[in-house]
C-alpha cells in the first residue's frame, strides 16, 4: 500500500470516528493505533452478555475479572490445577512461623507500578489494611482470620488469630495489590470505579468503550521476556452464538465458551482449533438436611447410588463435564487425593440394586411406586437455576431416574434470583448447584461441610446450604488449617472423603470444568493437559493474566 492510500484510509477512519462521536453511540479510535505492524492483536472471546462498564476496581466483583491478573498482581500465584503449587509473584519468598500463626513475605525488589513509581512492601501492607478499613472490599474475608499486617523493610508480616494455613491461598493468591500512592488519595475506594487502573502487571488498560477493552503490554514490566503479546482486545458479546462463531472462525485464539457439539461447530471449522476442559469443582445435589427423609443418610446414599452419572454427563453436558464421585474429589485434577478405601465400590453408572437394599434395610417399602416409611414418603422437589439449560437437561435425567427408582422428584426451574435466594435461605428440598472450590479438595469440602458457614433456615448462608453440622467434621476441617505437611493434609481429606461416602451430606453429580478453547497456530504457551500451569478460563482470576504474561507470538 503506498503512502497516499494509507493517509487517505487513515483520514477516512478519523472522519468516520469523529462522525460517530457526534451521532453514534460509540466514540472509539482507530483499530490499528498502537499495534506494531508485524504482530496481530490477540482478541479474547469472553461473552458476558453485556457491554463493558469500563470499571476496573479489583475489589468489586463485577470489575475484578477485568483487572486482577493482568493489571493487578498478587503476592504469589497458587495453581488450582496442580494441587495449590505456589509460584512466587510479587513476593519472592514466604515462610510460616509461630505455630503457623505468622506468615512472613519477602517482597520482590525492582518492581515498578505502571506509572513508574517503585513498588514496595508498604504497598502490600497498605492494601491489606485498606481491606480491614473497608469490609465491603474484603471479598475473601481475609480479616476474619487476620489480626495484623505490617511492613518493615522488604518484609511483610501477617499475624493470624489462629493457625490458618489454607488461608495462604486467599491472602497470597487472591488479594490484588494496589498502589498506596494512588489509592490513599481516593476518597471512597468502595464506590470508585478506578477507570484508569495502575498496577504492576504485564498489561496496561489503554482504551475502554462499551464495545471493547484494549490492553497494551506494559513496557516496564518487571518480568523481562514476559507479556510478549503487544495488544489484547476484549470485545463485548451480548450472546453466546455470536461469540461462538467469532471463536470458530478464528477471529479469536482464546475463548471460554460453552459450545454445543464442539467437534462440528468449533474444532472442524478451522485448523488448530483445540479445546481442553479441566475439571475444577463439583456440581452437586444439595439435600436440605432439615427435610424429613433427606435428613436420613441412607436415603441420601440411595439417591447417590440410583443416579447414572455417565448418562447425565452425556445427555446434559455433551460429555464435557465428567461424572463426579461421591468422595467429592475432582479427578483427574486432584487424583492424588483420592482415598482408595472411600472410593471403593463407587461407580459412575447407576446401582439401583444397592440403592434398593439401602432403603429396604432402613425400613422403606414401595407404596404405589414410591418408597415410604410410616409418614415419610420419598417425594421431593428438585430446584435448579432456570437460566442454565444444560443444568436443566441434567436434572431432567436425574428426575426421571429417581422417579423410576421410587423416589418421586418434581423438577422446578425458577429464575436465577429466586433460585439463589431460596438456596441460600434453605427454602428448598433438593437443589443442584456448584461451589467455588479451591486449589485443593479441602476448600470445597470446607465450603460444603463447615458448620460455621451455614445459617438457620430463613437466613442466607453463602455456603453449606444443606445445613450440615457435625462436631467431628468441624474438628477435622480445623485440624487441616494447623498443618503445612502435605501428608497430614491428605490424611485429613481422606477422613473427609469417608464422611462423604458414609453420610452423603452433599451428592456430587458432575464435575464442573473450565471452558477453554484455543488456537495455537500463531501463539504458543497456552496451558494444556500435560502442562496445566494455570486455570485456562478467561473468568479465572488471576490465572488469565498469568497465562497472558506467558503467551508468546510465533515468529
Amino acid at each position, binding site marked *: 500500500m503506498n503512502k497516499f492510500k494509507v493517509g487517505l484510509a487513515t483520514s477516512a477512519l478519523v472522519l468516520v470516528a469523529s462522525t460517530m462521536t457526534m451521532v453514534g453511540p460509540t466514540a472509539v479510535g482507530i483499530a490499528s493505533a498502537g499495534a506494531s505492524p508485524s504482530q496481530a492483536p490477540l482478541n479474547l472471546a469472553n461473552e458476558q452478555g453485556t457491554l463493558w462498564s469500563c470499571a476496573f476496581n479489583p475489589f468489586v466483583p463485577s470489575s475484578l475479572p477485568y483487572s486482577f491478573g493482568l493489571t493487578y498482581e498478587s503476592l504469589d500465584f497458587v495453581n488450582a490445577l496442580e494441587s495449590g503449587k505456589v509460584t512466587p509473584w510479587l513476593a519472592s519468598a514466604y515462610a510460616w512461623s509461630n505455630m503457623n500463626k505468622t506468615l512472613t513475605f519477602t517482597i520482590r525488589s525492582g518492581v515498578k507500578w505502571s506509572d513508574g513509581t517503585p513498588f514496595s512492601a508498604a504497598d502490600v501492607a497498605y492494601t491489606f489494611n485498606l481491606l480491614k478499613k473497608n469490609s465491603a472490599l474484603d471479598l475473601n474475608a481475609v480479616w476474619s482470620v487476620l489480626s495484623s499486617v505490617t511492613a518493615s523493610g522488604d518484609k511483610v508480616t501477617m499475624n493470624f488469630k489462629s493457625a490458618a494455613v489454607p488461608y495462604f491461598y486467599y491472602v497470597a493468591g487472591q488479594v490484588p495489590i494496589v498502589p498506596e500512592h494512588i489509592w490513599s488519595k481516593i476518597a471512597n475506594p468502595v464506590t470508585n470505579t478506578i477507570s484508569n487502573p495502575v498496577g504492576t502487571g504485564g498489561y496496561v488498560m489503554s482504551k475502554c468503550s462499551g464495545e471493547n477493552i484494549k490492553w497494551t503490554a506494559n513496557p516496564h514490566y518487571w518480568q523481562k521476556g514476559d507479556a510478549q503479546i503487544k495488544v489484547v482486545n476484549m470485545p463485548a458479546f451480548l450472546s453466546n452464538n455470536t461469540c461462538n462463531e467469532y471463536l470458530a472462525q478464528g477471529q479469536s485464539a482464546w475463548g471460554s465458551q460453552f459450545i454445543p457439539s464442539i467437534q462440528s461447530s468449533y474444532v472442524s471449522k478451522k485448523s488448530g482449533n483445540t479445546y481442553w476442559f479441566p475439571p475444577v469443582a463439583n456440581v452437586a445435589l444439595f439435600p436440605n438436611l432439615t427435610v424429613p427423609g433427606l435428613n436420613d443418610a441412607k436415603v441420601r446414599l440411595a439417591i447417590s447410588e440410583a443416579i447414572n452419572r455417565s448418562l447425565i454427563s452425556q445427555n446434559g453436558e455433551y460429555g464435557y463435564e465428567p461424572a463426579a464421585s461421591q468422595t467429592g474429589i475432582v479427578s483427574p485434577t486432584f487424583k492424588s487425593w483420592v482415598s482408595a478405601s472411600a472410593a471403593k465400590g463407587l461407580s459412575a453408572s447407576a446401582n439401583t440394586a444397592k440403592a434398593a437394599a439401602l432403603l429396604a434395610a432402613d425400613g422403606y417399602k414401595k407404596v404405589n411406586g414410591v418408597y415410604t416409611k410410616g409418614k415419610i414418603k420419598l417425594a421431593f422437589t428438585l430446584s435448579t437455576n432456570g437460566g442454565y439449560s444444560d443444568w436443566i437437561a441434567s436434572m431432567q435425567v436425574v428426575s426421571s431416574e429417581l422417579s423410576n427408582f421410587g423416589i418421586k422428584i418434581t423438577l422446578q426451574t425458577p429464575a436465577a434470583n*429466586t433460585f439463589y435466594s431460596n438456596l441460600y435461605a434453605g427454602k428448598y428440598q433438593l437443589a443442584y448447584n456448584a461451589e467455588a472450590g479451591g486449589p485443593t479438595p479441602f476448600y470445597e469440602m470446607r465450603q460444603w461441610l463447615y458448620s460455621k458457614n451455614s445459617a438457620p433456615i430463613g437466613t442466607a448462608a453463602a455456603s453449606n446450604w444443606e445445613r450440615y453440622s457435625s462436631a467431628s467434621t468441624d474438628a477435622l476441617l480445623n485440624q487441616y488449617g494447623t498443618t503445612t505437611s502435605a501428608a497430614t493434609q491428605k490424611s485429613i481429606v481422606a477422613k473427609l472423603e469417608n464422611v462423604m461416602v458414609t453420610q452423603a451430606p452433599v451428592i456430587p453429580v458432575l464435575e464442573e470444568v473450565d471452558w477453554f478453547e484455543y488456537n495455537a497456530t500463531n501463539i504458543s504457551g497456552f496451558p494444556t493437559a500435560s502442562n496445566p500451569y494455570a486455570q485456562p478460563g478467561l473468568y479465572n482470576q488471576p490465572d488469565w493474566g498469568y497465562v497472558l504474561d506467558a503467551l508468546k507470538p510465533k515468529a
Partner: protein
Amino acid sequence: MTVNFFIPRLMPGNPAESILGQFHGHINPSALKALEAAFGIGKHQNILISYFEYLRNSLTGNFGASFSQGGTPVATVIAHDLPWTLGLVGLSTILGFVFGTALGAIAAWRRGGRLDNVLPPSFIIISAFPYFWVGLLCIWFFSFTLNWLPYEGGFNQTSSPAFGDIMIHAILPAFTIVITSIGGWILTMRNNMITVVAEDYVKMARAKGLKNQRILWQYAGRNALLPNLTGFAMSLGFVISGAILVEDVFNYPGVGFLLLQAVNAEDYPLMQALFLLITVAVLIAIFCADVATAILDPRTRGGN
C-alpha cells in the same frame, strides 16, 4: 417514583445474593458479606431511610452507582446505552409512522383501488402477529436461509465498530419494527382520510380545480393527521419500554437490554433510573403532542 423504589425491592433475594450467584464458582462465598456491605443491605439499614435518600438523590439528579456495572454511575451507564435505543427504535417508530400515514392517505384517496385492496389488510394481518414472532421469522429468513444480514448484536466485534457496520446490524430489527407497527397507522389514517375527503372544503377545493396532489396532502391529509398525532407521540414515549422486546430478540445493546440485565442482577439503582426514564419519556411525549396539536389545529387553542 415511590413505586419505582419499592417494586424492585419486592423481588426475591437481594443484589448481593444475585451477584454471588452469577459469579458462582469464580468467587469466594465469603464475598456475600462484603457485597452486602458494599450495597448497603443488611439489618441495620432502614428501608425508610434509604427511601428518603433515594427521593432526595433523584430530585437532585443523582441516581447513584449501578450495582452490577462495577459501581459506574447509573447516568453514565444509561447515557452509553440510550443512543442505541433512540437510534434503532426511535428512528424505526418514526419511519413506521411516516410510511404508514402516507400509505393510509393514498389508500383512502384511491379507495377501492389496487393499493387499497392489498396494503391495509396485509399490514394489519402482520401487525396482529406478536413482534418477537415476526422478529424470529425475519431472522430465520434473512439470516439463516438467505444469509444476508447479521441476526443479532449491534456491531461486529472489532476494536472499533464502523458506522456502516452498525447500520447493517440495525436493518433487521428496524425492518421488523416498521412492518409490525405500520398496519395501525395505515388503518387509522385511511379511516380519518375517508371522513375528511367527504367534507365540504375538500369538495370546494376540487371545485376550484386544485391539483389532486395538493388536495391530498394540504387539505385532506393535514386534517386527517391530527388525531393520529397524539397516538404517534405516545408511541414515541413508549420507545424505551418497547425496546425491551426488540433488544431481547436481537440481543441488541440498548436500554431495553440494560433493563433486562438490571432486573436479573437486582440492580436497584439502575432499575429505578430506567423506570423513571420510561415514565418521563411518556410524559414528555404527550406534552409535545399537545403542543403540536395546538399549533396545527387552531380550534384546540380555545379561549377567545
